[in-house]
């Protein structure tokens, strides 16, 4: 039976980076949303 490699750090890095990209884009959209509603008022 092969020994399972210990490489959890890569998994954590990928999960964190993915979260940063998606949440970053959501923040960009939130900023655009605020700008549009401010200009409307």
């Amino acid at each position, binding site marked *: *039976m092969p020994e399972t490699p210990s490489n959890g750090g*890569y998994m954590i890095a990928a999960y964190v980076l993915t979260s940063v990209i*998606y949440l970053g884009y959501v923040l960009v959209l939130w900023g655009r949303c605020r700008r549009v509603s401010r200009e409307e008022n």
Partner: protein
Amino acid sequence: MNVDPNRAQVLIRRGWRITLVALLAVASVMVLALRFTPTEVRQGLAQKIFYIHAPSAWCAFLAVTLTGIASILYLWLGDRHFDRFAATSAEVGTVFCAVVLTSGPIWGKPIWGTWWTWDARLSLTLFLFFLLLGYQVLRSAIRVPTERARLAAVVGIMAMVLVPFIHLSVYLFRGLHPTPIVLKPSAPSLDPEMLRTLLFSFASFTLLYVGLVTLAYGIRLAQEAREQGNA
């Protein structure tokens, strides 16, 4: 054609609701993958990158395909809604593509021993990402709306044409990237628990795509309504 600002607000509110539910679902996917899905024996924990990498790739390809279809419809019918949708879907697709191109090398390093290789699948996905960036640059560089929509539509269609090549590249060329284990003619070759997590992940990321497109489309509509009001 006049843009209804109330319609924009409805879409923005709906977009936020779907996006927030989708973000919660994606967070649940991560918890499910970490705590309640078995670890692959040969690859270890790094294999769990699969649950975010593959669904992000699916959404990127979905976004580009819908951009291409909307672009064709715009060129055919000349309806601004299709151009607006194509632009929105391409922008969201770029974000999904960025996730594919970052999570892939992080998975590749412990499994293949290298961050990057000029394998056909990887190279074509990088090319698609540059094409999507080019699409955004083109749109921001042209001020005349009809000319912008027409030229962007051509790039959108070119990006769509690339998608089947990327999917089939693992069969057409020899490389390090594995062949699909779910999106293939035969039954998925995956442990049932892993498959359940993966399917939930596909649903969650697809919902995220829908939420982000609805939200970004609503914002685009609101911006156009404001520009119309100023003119």
